[in-house]
């Protein structure tokens, strides 16, 4: 992007100030829901459902404790009979006439998200790199059709795709397994990774490979030693996009997993506390779930445009 993007008549300092103020105002308003998520995670359950909504409150870790535990409500006499609390979080819970009966499933689901996210990203980028190189450098029959076909796989509503996949997984014993979800996310992410990576390969001048071949490298060696290192930034950006997709995906996870391989997105909406939808716990889970994506978004900001348009628009 050029620094001289100022258009005639638009460059007055006042104009800049007004434009800047409007944008900042929009950004601040758009941030309210996210700030509210962060804040609610540190509210006590009664504070979270107070009217009018509380902007100032006494922060507590109850939401986070509730997120990671399951609790059961008991009479004070029963709680008394258990002896003194063994930890600060047990003490916190007992204030509400509850005892901790065990860990919650949140940590398991989060771990599933990590395993399935990284597993599918690795495969999608691995296969995508090879395919992108193939499409970029070789004469492939029906190339344009194949590339379009790869893209068109994204046009089906996920719920529609899930119908036959459900039957297929049931037949193959892949229902509710990490392997099945990794395979599925890999397939869905391939369209993104092939298109993005092909763009990156196209940008690498062929002269490098030619020079390598003159030096006595084979085609595969040239790919491995010359092209791949140059693609590093592109591969990293693609990987992050694939990871974010797998991380955020909801429909397939909802319909094809039930526990063993369930990821966080279908789980977070159903975190409930004892006797009420526990908004601080939901907010705590949401915060922990969104945080990595926010970090990645900031890291990725210069590649964002390319990623979200499947490489159709490059800066």
């Amino acid at each position, binding site marked *: 992007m050029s620094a001289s993007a100022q258009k005639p008549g638009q460059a007055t300092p006042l104009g800049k100030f007004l434009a800047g103020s409007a944008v900042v105002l929009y950004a601040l308003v758009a941030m309210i829901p996210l700030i509210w998520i962060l804040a609610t995670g540190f509210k006590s359950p*009664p504070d979270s*459902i107070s009217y009018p909504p509380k902007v100032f409150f006494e922060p507590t870790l109850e939401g986070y404790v509730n997120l990671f535990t*399951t*609790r*059961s*409500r*008991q*009479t004070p006499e029963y709680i008394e009979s258990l002896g003194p609390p063994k930890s600060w979080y047990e003490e916190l819970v007992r204030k*509400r*006439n509850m*005892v901790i*009966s*065990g860990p919650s*499933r949140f940590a398991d689901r989060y771990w*599933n998200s*990590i*395993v*399935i996210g*990284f*597993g599918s*990203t*690795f495969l999608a980028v691995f296969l995508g790199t090879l395919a992108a190189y193939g499409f970029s450098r070789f004469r492939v029959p029906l190339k344009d059709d194949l590339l379009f076909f790869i893209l068109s796989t994204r046009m089906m509503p996920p719920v529609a795709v899930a119908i036959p996949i*459900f039957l297929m*997984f*049931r037949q193959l014993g892949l*229902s*509710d*397994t*990490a*392997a099945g979800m*990794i395979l599925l996310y890999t397939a869905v992410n391939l369209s993104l990774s092939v298109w993005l990576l092909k763009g990156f390969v196209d940008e690498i001048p062929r002269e490098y490979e030619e020079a390598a071949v003159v030096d006595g490298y084979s085609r595969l060696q040239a790919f491995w030693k010359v092209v*791949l290192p140059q693609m590093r930034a592109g591969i990293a950006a693609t990987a992050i996009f694939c990871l974010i997709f797998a991380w955020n995906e909801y429909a397939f996870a909802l*319909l*094809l997993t*039930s*526990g*063993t*391989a369930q990821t966080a997105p279908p789980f977070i*909406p*159903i975190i*409930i506390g*004892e*006797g*009420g*939808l526990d908004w601080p716990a939901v907010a705590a889970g949401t915060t922990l779930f969104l945080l990595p994506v926010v970090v990645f978004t900031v890291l990725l900001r210069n590649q964002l445009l390319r990623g979200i348009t499947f490489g159709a628009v490059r800066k």
Partner: protein
Amino acid sequence: MRAKKLTAVAGGAFLAAMSGAQAQDSEITLCWAAWDPANALVELSKDFTASTGIGMNFEFVPWTNFADRFLNELNSGGKLCDLMIGDSQWIGGGATYGHYVQLNEFFDQEGISMDDFLPATVYAYSTWPKGTPNYYALPAMGDALGWVYRKDWFSRPELREAFKAEYGRDLGVPSNWQELKETATFFQGREIDGETRYGAAIYTERGSEGITMGVTAALYPWGFKYENAPGSYDMEGAVNSAASVEGLEFYKSLYDCCSPPGHSDAYMVANLDAYKSGQVAMQMNWFAFFPGIAKDEVVGGDVSGFFVNPGQNIEASTLGGQGISVVAYSDKKDLALEYLKWFAQPDVQAKWWALGGYSCHQSVLGDPGFAETAPFAADFLKAMSGVQDFWQEPIYAELLLAMQQRVHDYVVAGKGTAQEALDKLIEDWTISFEDDGKL
């Protein structure tokens, strides 16, 4: 070098994922809804692990996602759950489609007699076809729909006076739906302790079964019937009888006059929230929650009172509750049966009730002192003597979703009339029964 390391890490994660699918052998997983009684069951099951060495895992899903999630699990032939505390309406599908293990042989072998359990619960939670001695579950949790009210407000002199002046009778537990509505109208918008209060939190949830359970709590007392003759699937004139239409219209009028703002997609948890935060004077909810309410640090103790679903033309309550079944796809059926054997013991059943679960065992319910053990115990027995349930057909989910849509469209979205809603419902159900070969 770095690429290699990355490959190793990702590959390792992949392998870990594959192997993670195999759980330990001496552990079983029990699936149920996420609610108070489930937490009590976790507490109770610690004894099972202590006495048998078999570890217990739990998968709990909130009611609004419960059927959706676990029927999906059963239909996919999944091995997540070894034990399933499935809803009463699932028993038809569980038996017909082979999700549940038939338990007759096991019961005979272990000397577990269904006569030891409340007949209404055995009929509703265990048998398929209905009423035959073919058992697919052990009655685990008795339940019916009841009501909770703010006893403290109901006993305030100034409110009692105002109520009497307006309605010419004492403010108290309503004896029919008309009185319930009057009471709710009285509290709607009233200032108590400087805050605006509302009449009654009722079920209006769209996604799973919420509004159907709420609406039937009114329909059954008005005399609603699913069929003209049991087993005939002849619904014209039963489902849309004049009494049914009146009951449905009444439920809508109650929703319109006396529910708190934004109460348009509410099931159990939303009603609890509305009640516990002091928004409403009454809430409909399952008996299952009453022990938790009685123990609550805010609305527990003398603050809350309980009453059975009021009658109108007849006395009737909507049935809740579940039996516990062994999942046919489990690799650890023997351990799961071990759990059933343990759970059926009278002393375990007694502790189950003490911790907040509703035992269906006669030794607990038939105890002369039972009615005194909790403020809602007597009401529970009364409610269970007049329960009615939704279709338990194998295709019940389809029937339920049709009712959810038709009733929600009328009650909450205000589309059409009660007559039209019930007429359309018969059309939907007829198609479903035709597809299923029953008509």
